[in-house]
């Protein structure tokens, strides 16, 4: 069964149609790139999957269920915002995640913090922007979730961190879990993706595998994307 499924999913904000009758399925074991220019509806789709927004019409299903308490237990979400409370230390955040998420692997989180040289007792407030983003990523990737929804995880990070993020995604690969990475920086992530979904003005314009695109078009997804979304 698909871990994420959209059926005629639409979301409207006042006069703006952010998503228009989206239909798509994401199967477990896939690493999927949600690709589109800024404002195309990527974040709206991810927010709907997390229950942070309610559809205007249609449905979005996580493991067959509408977003709610049960689906939130199996979805690990990295927002593009800095959402960790500033007063908390990395250690307190690990306590928090241990309390709320049965699938949180504390040892793994500790190990990743150590490897990146982040002091557990340091508070978010004291950390640089880059370190905060790393802590968010570590917490999100230390869960054994069924669905990872990563919104712009590599936007604005330095190349070393970007490599670390992609490494973490590969190392964490689990055949029963799907990873969705939303980004507009395709060249950086192309190698780790199985499938791509192109999203444009609230419409899904393409859902295909990376190798299919390369085989059929004889060019990288990045190059193809630039062609499709040429201004």
């Amino acid at each position: 069964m698909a871990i994420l499924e959209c059926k005629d999913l639409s979301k409207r904000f006042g006069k703006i149609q952010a998503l228009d009758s989206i239909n798509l399925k994401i199967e477990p074991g896939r690493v999927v790139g949600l690709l589109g220019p800024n404002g195309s509806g990527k974040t709206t789709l991810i927010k709907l999957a997390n229950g942070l927004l309610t559809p205007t019409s249609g449905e979005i299903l996580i493991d067959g269920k509408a977003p709610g308490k049960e689906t939130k237990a199996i979805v690990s979400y990295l927002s593009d915002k800095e959402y960790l409370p500033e007063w908390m230390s990395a250690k307190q955040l690990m306590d928090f995640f241990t309390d709320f998420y049965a699938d949180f692997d504390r040892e793994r989180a500790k190990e990743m913090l150590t490897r990146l040289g982040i002091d557990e007792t340091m508070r978010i407030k004291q950390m640089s922007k880059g370190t905060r983003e790393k802590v968010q990523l570590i917490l999100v990737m230390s869960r054994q979730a069924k669905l990872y929804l990563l919104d712009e995880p590599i936007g604005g990070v330095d190349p070393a961190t970007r490599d670390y993020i992609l490494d973490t995604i590969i190392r964490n690969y689990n055949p029963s879990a799907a990873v969705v990475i939303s980004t507009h920086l395709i060249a950086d992530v192309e190698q780790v993706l199985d499938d791509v979904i192109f999203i444009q003005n609230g419409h899904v314009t393409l859902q295909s595998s990376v190798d299919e695109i390369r085989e059929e078009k004889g060019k990288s997804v990045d190059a193809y994307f630039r062609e499709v979304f040429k201004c």
Partner: protein
Amino acid sequence: MLGKLLKHEFRATGRTMLPVYGAVVVLAVLANVSIRMLSGNVGPLLSIFFGLIVAAFGICVVAAGVMTLVLMVKRFYTNYLKDEGYLMHTLPVSVHGLVWSKMIVSIVWFAATFAVIGLVLLLTAIIQTDTSLAQFFAGFPSWAEIREGLDQYGIRLGDLWFIGFEALLCVIVGSLFTCLHFYAAMSLGHMFAKDKILLSIVFFVAISFVLSMATTGYSAGRFYSLESMDVTLDTAQEAIRFAKAMLGEMLLVEAVQTAVLYVATVLGLKRGLNLA
């Protein structure tokens, strides 16, 4: 999961409230000393100094009260409606759990602030008048005296307990109402993309207006005069009966308003959440 939300919320708010209480207690002690010094013979400069400490104590007491209220509003706002909302609304907990955890913790702090302020003011009063604790409490009637007095008027102790219980419920529901008045206004105001804070204030005023219209209309019809309620307050028993009924009715009115606000808050968060 409510337990875990409560634990986290106490952790988050304790770091503000406990130092505030600490400051109140320390200033209470200093103020006591200052008042004693002022009653002795001190120079003008020291008088000003001690006077300032007493004033600081007064301000701190008021600030503790205000802080309790501000924290109640601020926690809901920053934790659920700003960026931290991305963390809190993706936890595997229900919206009910989210709302109740904030209300319960706020009410506990209301009670704690009330207790701390009451205690320091009481102690200040006692120490200032040079009364010992024993003397102070000797001023109160004994339990036997109270019983005797009640018997004289034919009032049963059970009735008093009942009224006390009703009053306590009124205070609790009233506190829930206060929290939910802010929560509902904010969660409705934040359903919109722009001017979220302004709209929250508009909703706050609108809720006050609508609820007071509704309840004033009800009360005016119901409690027009003693005659209209068909009560005479000729005997103590009758007064007790009246108080019980009156409190019960107030409680009901308050509970209905609170429930309406609760539903508005939950729906606002569940269906209308629109984090920036």
